[in-house]
């Protein structure tokens, strides 16, 4: 595994490998997590996400972002075993509590705000800005 140690030295941390959890960022499965079950080719992987509704299929790596998570599964795991592995790993919990997952849920929240909620949000942002600027001005004065 000389190549892998070299790649790690180069600074690559996320690898396309069996068990890697990927986030699909394009196409009909946009926004879903899936697990790499087999590598077809330089550009394609076999992927499935039974808990997120991704059927077992070929997925081009262009449509995919690698996450930090790697499941301890074997190449070509069947759906049942895969679901068990995902639940044992608590993938949903881990991803949703990560900063990536929180960013996604915030985005969804923002997209679903009503006009009145956006107005409330605007007032809160103005308040926050006011408090921040006041604190900065005080600190500057104290520093002099």
């Amino acid at each position, binding site marked *: *595994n000389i190549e*892998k140690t070299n*790649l790690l030295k180069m600074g*690559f941390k*996320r*690898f*396309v*490998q*069996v068990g890697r959890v990927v986030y699909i*960022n*394009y*196409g009909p499965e*946009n926004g879903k997590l899936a697990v790499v079950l*087999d*590598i*077809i*080719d330089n550009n*394609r992987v*076999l992927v499935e996400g039974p808990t997120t509704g991704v059927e*077992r*299929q*070929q997925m081009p*790596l*262009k449509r995919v972002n*690698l996450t930090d998570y790697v499941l301890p599964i074997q*190449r*070509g795991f069947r759906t049942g075993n895969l679901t068990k592995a995902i639940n044992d790993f608590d993938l949903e919990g881990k991803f949703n509590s990560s900063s990536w997952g929180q960013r996604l849920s915030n985005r969804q929240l923002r997209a679903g705000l009503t006009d009145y909620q956006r107005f409330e949000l605007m007032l809160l942002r103005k308040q926050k800005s006011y408090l921040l600027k006041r604190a900065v001005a005080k600190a500057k004065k104290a520093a002099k």
Partner: protein
Amino acid sequence: PELQYRQYQVVGRKIPTESDPTPPMYRLKVFAQDEVFAKSRFWYYMNRLRKVKKSVGEVLRVIEIKEKSPNQVKNYGIWIRYDSRSGTHNMYKEARGTSLNGAIKEIYEEMGSRHRARHSVVQIVKTDIIPAAECRRDNTTQFHDSKIAFPLKHRLPRSNKKSHKSTFKA
């Protein structure tokens, strides 16, 4: 819509006559986009290999052959005969994929790009699923590694919404 190859099995024979009441039936497995082209190819080969023309023959059945295991990664070996500018040659190519139809599409595209061989001059002679130990091409065998892992290098960001798409990027 994207070009999609399907595998058809065409069975046909010469139309029975008084002198020949039970002519032999021939079967052709062909990759085509539709049944029409599959039947056309059947007569193309029947003409060349047997003394049967479309006008004296009949197609008995055209069936699409579907992929048995579309979610299993396989190594396909494909034997080709094609006409180049200066002669006709045989070739053996390997493709890795989950379906034979997908592999054949890759092969046709490769023949077009590498050898400038258009579809009409490429004949698929034989196809087979090759076990990993018997694959001959480095391009295929480099993926026969149980612990394969590679990073995604030089990623170019792409918008997933048409509204975020732009012709020129800063």
